[in-house]
């Protein structure tokens, strides 16, 4: 069935595109004396002597070679095989889409849950407004603004990194309002949240400013240990509640283990093969979490292990961030960057030729910075609204009232009963989103001049390059179909009430 759809739509697309323009148009106006032979060569190369409805089958025969292990997607007009070009372009697009989607999901679901729990509060109203504003933004418009304010002016700021006092007060006030609104159920908790978050931010910014931290950042072992302990408390509070002693002890011991491994990891980070180190680190972290669970929990080990492994994972991420911060100073001041680290175009800096894993990683991340922000801003609004709507629906259900009635505490009701049922429709949304975003990155790639699939797509349309276009179509259509299928399967698997195609 899938193959029939793919066949049909690719046939339609091929002929539509063949209708849309004349690949020989550029020769018509050419004054080159050898234009005749060029036309002849192009006709031969693109098989223009065969009419498009039949030419499609030549292309199809090449693609079907995939079953005998020799796929042939044809050649682009400059002569390179389409397969090789695509293999270069796909990772670029995936990198762009992947990071943005993950951040959008995490941020969107978190804010969506909070707005649902604080329905009709000021926080809810302002977040609704922000979400709708994001919905309404054309991405290229955002991109131009980001380039101006996040890149050019931020780079200007870096050449003389002093945070003005007005800014400190402004940022701290904003953070204070945000956290006050999230935490505030009553007036008292609002002011507690307001002053503690605002005071903390202001203090942090003042220290950053005073110590020249922006050019020489780093977390340092002591602060790292403090953060690890705090993370352990936070994760436990959200998942099991700090009252649950086994979880708390397990994640705390993971945090202590993380703090102890800080110095050994610093020397390991200097090794050659960083991928192995990172993967090994992940495995070790999970094993430590497992051991801690075994020691502290006798029953109900699953949730405890989940808590401690999430703690371990977040601590690992912080460790990597710390290493990246240490790389920041030399990177920014190096001759190729010259204190303008946030680039406006491209997917990596062509001047930097380094084998150092961390410099390359930092460079890639910095180039991802603006496009990711742009895509995230636009993507996360949908998740906020969707999560909010679904969670409100779920909270009105009878089984939630039952859960409350049997005396479960609010966190268990929300996290175990409500949130899990909220995830059912969101998972299906997510799957489809991943596939469609590859097409949606077209404009973003174009604005930021990334050499991904979107750019190829535009090139293919502009030069009437059928083989290239069909190659891209092959990738995106396959992705879209597979995603739809997975979404359908997930939907009926997660929600047994849905009956599909069962006849009468």
């Amino acid at each position, binding site marked *: *069935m899938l193959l*029939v*759809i*793919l066949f*049909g*739509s690719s046939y*339609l*697309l091929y002929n*539509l*595109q063949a*209708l*849309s*323009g004349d690949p020989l148009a550029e020769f018509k106006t050419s004054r080159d004396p050898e234009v005749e032979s060029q036309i002849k060569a192009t006709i031969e190369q693109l098989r223009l002597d065969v009419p498009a409805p039949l030419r499609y089958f030549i292309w199809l025969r090449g693609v079907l070679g995939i079953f005998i292990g020799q796929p042939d997607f044809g050649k682009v007009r400059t002569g390179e095989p389409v397969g090789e070009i695509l293999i270069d372009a796909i990772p670029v697009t995936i990198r762009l889409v992947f990071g943005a989607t993950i951040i959008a999901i995490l941020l969107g679901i978190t804010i969506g849950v909070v707005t649902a729990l604080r*329905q*009709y509060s000021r926080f809810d109203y302002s977040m*609704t407004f922000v979400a*709708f*504003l994001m*919905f*309404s*933004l*054309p*991405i*290229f*418009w955002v991109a*131009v603004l980001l380039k*101006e304010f996040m890149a050019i002016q931020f780079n200007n700021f870096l050449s003389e990194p002093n945070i003005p006092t007005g800014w400190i007060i402004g940022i701290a006030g904003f953070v204070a309002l945000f956290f006050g609104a999230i935490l505030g159920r009553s007036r008292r908790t609002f002011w507690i949240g307001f002053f503690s978050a605002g005071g903390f931010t202001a203090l942090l910014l003042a220290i950053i400013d005073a110590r020249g931290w922006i050019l020489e950042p780093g977390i340092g072992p002591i602060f790292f240990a403090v953060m690890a302990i705090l993370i352990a408390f936070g994760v436990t509070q959200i998942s099991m509640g700090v009252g649950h002693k086994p979880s708390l002890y397990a994640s705390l011991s993971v945090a202590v283990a993380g703090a102890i491994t800080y110095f050994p990891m610093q020397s390991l980070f200097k090794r050659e093969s960083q991928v192995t180190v990172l993967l090994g680190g992940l495995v070790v972290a999970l094993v430590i979490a497992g051991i801690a669970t075994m020691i502290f929990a006798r029953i109900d080990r699953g949730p405890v292990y989940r808590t401690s492994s999430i703690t371990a994972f977040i601590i690992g991420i912080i460790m990597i961030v710390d290493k990246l911060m240490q790389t920041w100073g030399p990177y920014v001041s190096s001759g190729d960057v010259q204190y303008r680290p946030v680039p406006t175009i491209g997917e990596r800096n062509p001047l930097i030729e380094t084998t150092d894993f961390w410099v390359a990683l930092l460079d890639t991340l910095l180039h991802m910075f603006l496009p990711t922000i742009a895509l995230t801003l636009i993507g996360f609004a949908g998740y906020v609204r969707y999560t909010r*709507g679904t969670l409100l*629906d779920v909270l*009105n259900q009878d089984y939630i009232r039952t859960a409350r009635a049997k005396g479960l505490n609010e966190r268990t009701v929300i996290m175990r009963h409500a949130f899990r049922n909220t995830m059912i429709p969101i998972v299906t949304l997510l799957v489809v989103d991943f596939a469609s975003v590859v*097409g949606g990155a*077209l*404009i973003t790639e*174009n604005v930021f001049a990334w050499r991904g699939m979107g750019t190829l*797509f*535009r090139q293919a*349309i502009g030069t009437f390059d059928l083989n290239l*276009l069909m190659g891209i*179509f092959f990738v*995106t*259509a396959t992705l*879209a*179909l597979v995603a*739809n299928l997975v979404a359908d399967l997930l939907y009926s698997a997660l929600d047994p009430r*849905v*009956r*599909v*195609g*069962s*006849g*009468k």
Partner: protein
Amino acid sequence: MSEDRKQSSFGADTQSDIFSKETEGLSQSQIVRKRFFQHKAAMTSLFVLLGIVFFVFSAQSISLGPVKYPGWWKYDYEQISDLRIAECEGGVVGCPSLDVLPSFIDGTPMQIGEHPFGQDDIGRDYFAMVMRGAQRSLLVMVIIGTLGAALGTVIGAIAGFFRGWVDAILMRFTDFIITVPTIVLGSVIGYHFGNLGAVFLAFFLGIFAWTGISRLVRGEFLKLRELEFVDAARVAGASTRRIIFKHILPNAVGVIIVSATLLMSGAILLETGLSYLGFGVVPPDVSLGLLISSYQDAFTVRPWLFWWPGIFIIAVALCVNFIGDGLRDAFDPRQRRGMSRKDKASLARGESK
């Protein structure tokens, strides 16, 4: 035992109390209308949107067959006039003459001036261009939204109601349409029929814009047709047509209207995106997306060429989204707006307010 019974029936009574207070003696559509009128953000957006539509469409000339309305703004979007130099700062030309701040704040009096939104690089009046662009974009939005919603409802309803092989065929057809990239369609129309203009483009895109709605409507029909009232209607001898139009469709109309508004706000962005890539509205006609894409490099020198069309896109899309949100709340029977959790809890405990 009797205590238990009393408890549970007590809960149900207070629930229906809540409903009856708000909706006593009103029909379904009256309830929906009442709720929508109470939704402040949606009503504000509705008025703002109507204001924008009226403002935009009256500013520039529109011709409907033989009838031609001239428009109240003195310049036409294609008309070239002398570039304004005198009062601009920093040696740029064609800056906007609009000043919304009164003189006691910035020293210059409030005024509209000769070219309120400034001029483009060859001296065309930018206000006229933005108005014309907004006309095109609004038109495209409405056409795509209406056409997409109508097609999507029909296809989704048929698929969801009849299920089986009809559903299978229609849904595979939907998948088929989803896989054809809109942008290729846009480029094909652009190449062959580019001179036919924005309305034609909108119709063509609308024909392919129904996929999302049809999936939603299908899902809604799959769910509704299993419910008791449909069985009851069938047992009472209602025909298939009657069941679809009188029993199921009114229950699904909320989903349809809401997703149609979302489709509209998506459509205005689709049009701007296509025009940005050069596949949508083509010069000499203008649309908001085309204006932004033509002048994106001018941002540092002449930012007004960039700000105005963007502000109009955002304003329109934002209004449409808020209206959609208000409609969703109005159609949702479980939503009880303006009632905090504390009120609900006190009602549930049986305390009078």
